[in-house]
């Protein structure tokens, strides 16, 4: 059946089965391949996008449940927090293989929007659903602190 969904500010009509995960739609229908498939069972965070500004594991939501919510992916996330995170990620040379990093960035941006000056515990609690097989965790935490400082948090 055809679903109307709004992704990165653009309306799309997607003809998919009702239980198709949003992640599949983003990658295979809309070719927004920045969002990654890691596990498909809400365990890794690689598929993190924003739904109405809140972080969401896109492998856990069927297309039929998106409704009028606005989806933002790594390709279009913007604003001061996103800019600060992107700059800090470059400055701290955070990614290694990079596979988990779009999910990491989406979670980090969402955290900073809600908690402008997170402490280590805030960061750990927000980020530990995002697994990194290259174990870049120490750099991720440092980069989030740096982004927070840049934002004046």
């Amino acid at each position, binding site marked *: 059946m055809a679903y109307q969904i709004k992704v990165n500010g653009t309306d799309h009509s997607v003809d998919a089965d009702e239980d198709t995960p949003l992640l599949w739609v983003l990658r295979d229908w809309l070719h927004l391949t920045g969002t990654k498939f890691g596990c498909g069972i809400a365990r890794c965070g690689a598929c993190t996008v924003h739904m109405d500004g809140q972080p969401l594991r896109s492998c856990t939501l069927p297309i039929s*449940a998106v409704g009028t919510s606005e989806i933002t992916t790594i390709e279009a996330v913007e604003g001061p927090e996103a800019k600060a995170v992107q700059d800090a990620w470059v400055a701290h040379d955070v990614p290694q293989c990079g596979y988990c990093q779009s999910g990491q960035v989406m979670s980090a941006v969402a955290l900073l929007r809600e908690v402008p000056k997170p402490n280590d515990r805030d960061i750990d609690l927000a980020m530990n659903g995002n697994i990194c097989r290259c174990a870049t965790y120490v750099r991720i935490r440092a980069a989030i602190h740096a982004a927070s400082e840049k934002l004046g948090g």
Partner: protein
Amino acid sequence: MRSLVILLTCAIAALTSVALNATNKALPTTLQPVSAFATIKDPKARSVALFTEAGKVIQHPRCLNCHPATERPTQTDAMRPHEPLVVRGDGGIGAAGLRCITCHHNANFDPAGVPGNPKWALAPPEMAWQGKSLGDICRQIKDPARNGGRSMAELVHHMAEDELVGWGWHPGGKRTPAPGTQAEFGALIKAWADSGANCPA
């Protein structure tokens, strides 16, 4: 060496399945009706027996998982720590940046094996049940300071009607449901309240 590794792996797998089966076997699947307790003449003993029967639900992993002793929920019949590590946070809806709704939505989503309900949340710390005796849980449930300020009537309503409580009998997927039905459970709690709400020791 290789065969030793294979042997060990098989042994561990076998032990794990024995342990899991043991857990499953021990879990009750049914509840006795209120009428089954009518023969107990002493009202206090009857009240205690009714709550003890309701305790099959209250102390079932399906219910205990979201009434943890710590700030972290547990999962599965084995009640292992929730993966990923999540915490109760303010209002029981998770920490900033990793709320329950990051993964748990309005309905179960079986392709990802993720359960859901519109009211998905953890019980508050004062309603922690894990690690407590049924008697202690009983006294806690009756205490408005530790039961969300509920009167006995509101408590009965919560147990018998609440949607998230009710999810425990229809968890879907491969999850083991709470024993009996919510209506049977609600009837036991009501009969317990009506008979003086006495608690096991």
